[in-house]
C-alpha cells in the first residue's frame, strides 16, 4: 500500500524548514520540495512572537509547495525548545500463567505500568520509548513472549517537554491552516536521519548543534538510552563574539561562519581579522586567536554539558560508534577535533542518507538533518499505522 507524500516542518530559532518527501515502496524517501526561510519571533527554540514566527512558516511552506507541486495541508513538526528531558522509568509484573510462560497480556500489563510516570502538569509527554525487558534478572531481552520466568521488568525512556512551548509551535502551524499530525523531538529526528543500524547497535550519540538549542539522542546497549536538549546554541556563540569585540550581531554571525573555528590553534599566530567597516565608523580588526578563544570557550562548555548528561545516563562507556554532529553548528571548522577532546570517542559530522531533486546543489545537508529525520519518522509512522501495528520495528516506540 503506497504512502502519500509527507511534509515536515521545523521552526528553528534561525531557520524555518519545510520539506516534502515522496515515500517509495521500500520506504526510501525522495525529497521533492524544500522551503528554507530565516526565522523571526523564535528564541531558543520557542515561539516568542506568533506573528513573526508565522511569516517564516508561510514562506517556507509556500516554497516547498511550489517546488513539489503539492498542496501542503498536513505537517509533522519538530520540537527542540521547551527544555526537552528524558527520564528512565521501570515497572515490573508477576508472570500470570502457572507455567510461568510470558504471555502477550504480561507484556501489555508491564508496558502500561511503566508509562504511569507522573510528569508535572506544565509538561507534556512527547515519546515513550521502550527499552529492553528483563526476565528474572536476565536483561537484554527483546521479545519475552514465550520465555519462562516469574518476574518481567520493562524499562522505558519517557521524553517530555514544557507544554507551553510545544503547544505554541503547534499553534503557529495551525494559524497557517496546517493540520499537525505529530510533534516529534528534534534530536530523535536527527538520529533517524544520520545513524545507520550498525551505529545504533554499536552505540552512538547524535548531537544536533542548532541555532537556539543543542539536542542529543543516544543509543547504548541496543536501546535508546538518553535524550534531551539544552537552550544554548549557535546564537550564543554569535552573541559571545558580538559582546567580546563590540561588533553588531550580524557582523558577529558573518565572521563566525567565515572564519570561525571550534579549537584554538598555534597556527593562527598573530593573524588579525579585518571587520568590514560600517559606514561612519572606523576600521576594526580583531585577533583571530581571540575570536577562536571565544568560540572554543562556548562550544566546549556546551559539549561538556551534554557529556555530563550522557555520563549520568551511563552512556559514555558504551558509545562504540562515537558521536555524530548535525545541525548548523556541525559545519564549524574543527568541531570533530573539539568533540574528540571532550568525549574521548570518535566524532564525525552526520550526513543524512537521502536524495531528491530538491536537494541538488546543496553544499551540506547537516542543517536539514532534523527535517529529513521528520520525514523518515512520518514514513515509519504511516507504514506502521497502515499495517495495523504499533511502532515496534525501529525503537519499540509507542505513544
Amino acid at each position: 500500500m503506497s504512502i502519500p507524500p509527507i511534509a515536515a516542518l521545523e521552526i528553528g530559532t534561525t531557520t524555518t524548514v519545510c520539506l516534502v518527501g515522496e515515500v517509495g515502496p521500500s520506504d526510501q524517501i525522495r525529497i521533492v520540495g524544500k522551503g528554507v526561510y530565516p526565522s523571526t519571533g523564535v528564541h531558543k527554540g520557542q515561539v516568542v512572537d506568533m506573528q513573526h514566527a508565522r511569516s517564516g512558516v508561510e514562506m517556507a511552506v509556500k516554497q516547498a509547495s511550489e517546488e513539489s507541486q503539492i498542496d501542503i495541508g498536513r505537517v509533522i513538526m519538530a520540537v527542540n525548545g521547551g527544555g526537552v528531558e528524558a527520564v528512565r522509568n521501570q515497572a515490573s509484573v508477576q508472570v500470570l500463567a502457572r507455567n510461568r510462560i510470558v504471555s502477550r497480556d504480561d507484556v501489555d500489563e508491564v508496558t502500561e505500568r511503566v508509562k504511569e510516570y507522573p510528569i508535572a502538569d506544565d509538561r507534556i509527554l512527547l515519546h515513550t520509548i521502550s527499552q529492553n525487558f528483563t526476565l528474572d534478572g536476565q536483561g537484554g531481552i527483546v521479545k519475552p513472549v514465550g520465555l519462562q520466568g516469574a518476574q518481567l521488568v520493562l524499562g522505558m525512556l519517557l521524553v517530555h517537554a514544557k507544554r507551553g512551548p510545544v503547544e505554541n509551535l503547534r499553534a503557529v502551524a495551525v494559524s497557517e491552516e496546517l493540520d499537525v499530525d505529530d510533534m516529534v523531538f528534534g534530536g530523535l529526528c536527527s538520529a533517524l536521519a544520520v545513524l545507520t543500524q550498525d551505529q545504533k547497535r554499536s552505540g552512538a550519540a547524535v548531537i544536533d548543534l542548532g541555532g537556539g538549542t543543542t539536542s542529543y539522542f543516544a543509543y547504548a546497549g541496543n536501546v535508546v538510552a538518553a535524550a534531551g536538549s539544552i537552550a544554548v546554541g549557535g546564537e550564543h556563540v554569535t552573541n559571545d563574539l558580538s559582546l567580546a569585540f563590540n561588533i553588531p550581531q550580524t557582523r558577529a554571525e558573518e565572521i563566525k561562519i567565515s572564519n570561525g573555528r571550534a579549537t584554538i590553534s598555534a597556527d593562527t599566530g598573530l593573524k588579525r581579522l579585518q571587520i568590514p567597516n560600517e559606514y561612519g565608523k572606523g576600521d576594526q580588526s580583531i585577533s583571530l586567536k581571540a575570536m577562536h578563544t571565544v568560540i572554543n570557550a562556548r562550544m566546549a562548555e556546551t559539549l561538556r554539558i551534554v557529556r555530563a548528561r550522557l555520563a549520568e545516563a551511563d552512556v559514555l562507556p558504551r558509545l562504540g560508534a562515537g558521536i555524530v554532529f548535525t545541525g548548523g553548528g556541525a559545519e564549524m571548522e574543527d568541531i570533530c577535533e573539539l568533540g574528540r577532546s571532550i568525549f574521548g570517542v570518535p566524532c564525525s559530522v552526520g550526513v543524512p542518507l537521502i536524495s531528491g531533486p530538491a536537494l541538488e546543489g546543496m553544499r551540506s545537508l547537516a542543517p536539514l538533518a532534523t527535517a529529513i529525520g521528520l520525514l523518515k519518522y512520518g514514513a515509519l509512522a504511516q507504514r506502521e499505522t497502515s499495517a495495523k501495528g504499533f511502532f515496534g520495528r525501529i525503537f519499540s516506540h509507542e505513544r
Partner: protein
Amino acid sequence: MNDETADILLVGVGGGGCHFASAAARRFGPGIRAVGFDTDAATSRMVSGMRCLLLGASRLDGQGTGGDAVKGHAAADDSAEIIAPAISSARMAVVVTALGGGVGTGATPVILSALRSHGVPTLCVATLPFEFEGRERTAAATRALPVLEETADALVALRLDDLYRDGADVPVSEAMVAAEERLGDAISLLWSIVLSPGYISLGPAFLASLLSQSSGRCRFAVASAEGDGRATEAVGLLCRSSMLGASPSLEGVQAVLLGVLAGGDLRLKELSDISGRLRSALPQECSFNLSTVLDERYAGTVRLIALFFDSIRPEAPSAAESIDEFKAPAPHKSRRRSRGDGRLAPGERDRFQGTEGTFLDGENLDIPTYQRLRIRLDR
C-alpha cells in the same frame, strides 16, 4: 549638488516601489540616483527619472509574479549578478517598497540583505495596502514586516490609508496617485535635507551613522505651513501627522532627525520655536538633530520632515591598530536576529538582555562563557 549625491541610492522594489521612487525622483529633479527592480518589464516603461532592472528574467520572462511573494523572492535570488553592480557603490540606501504584492513582499528582503552584505546602511520605507485592497493582501503585507525589520537598519511602515485620507469619495486611481505623490514628496524632502547645503547641515554621513545605530522601526512624517504662525502650525501638524500612525505618540522616541526647509525669509525665532516645541513633545533624553535647508523655492512656507527613531544603540569605541592585516572574505548574506520579546534592548548589543535566561546549576548560560570563566582575551 555635491559629490556625495552619487553615494546615496534610492531603490524602488516592485511595481509600487518603483512608482514611489519615480515620484520622488521627479520631485527632486536631477541629482538623485535611483534604481528600480521588478519582474514586470512594463514597469520600466511606466516610470521616469530612474533605471529599472529586470529580476528573474529567465524564470518569469518579464512578467509579473501575480502577487506571489515566493516567486518574487526566487526572482531576486536568481538575479544576484544584476542586483550587486547596481547597489555596490552606494554608501547609504533608501529602499521603497509596496508590500502585499509579489515582488515588494518577496524580493525586498533579498535586496536589503544584498545591501547589508555590501556594508550599506539602509532605511526601508514600506507601505501597507489600502484597506479596500482586501484582507488577504493586507495580511501578506503585515507578515512581511518582521522580515524587513530584520534586514533593514531602520524600517518605516506606512499604511496607504494614512498617507491619503483626504476624502473617501474620489476615484481609486486618484487615491493611488495622491498617495504616490505624497510619499514621493516626503522622500524628496529627505534627500533635500541630507544633500542640500544649509545653514545647519547634517549630511549623508550623519544619516548613515544614525541608520547604523538604529535597531528597528522608525517613523516618518512631513508637514508644511505658511503665513503668520507658520512655525507653530507646522510643528503641530507634524506631531499629529497621520503618517505617524493611528495614535501618534512620541513618548518612546530615542532620536530624531528634523529637517526644516524654508526660504530666505526664515527667522531665527521661527527656527527656535520649531525646535523648542518639538523638543517639548519628545522625551528629555531623546537625541535631537536639526538640519536646515534654505531654498527660494520654499519662500513663504516652512516645510518640516522628521525621522523618529524608537530604538538606538550607542556608538562602539574603535579598536586598536592592527599588527598584521588578515582580510576577512566578502561578508556572507546576513542572518536575521531573533525578534519579538528577545529583541535587543535600547543601547545594548546583548541578544539575550531582558529575556528569560538559561540556567544550569545556578549559572546563567546566556552570559558569555569567556566572561564567566574570566578568560583574558588579547583582542
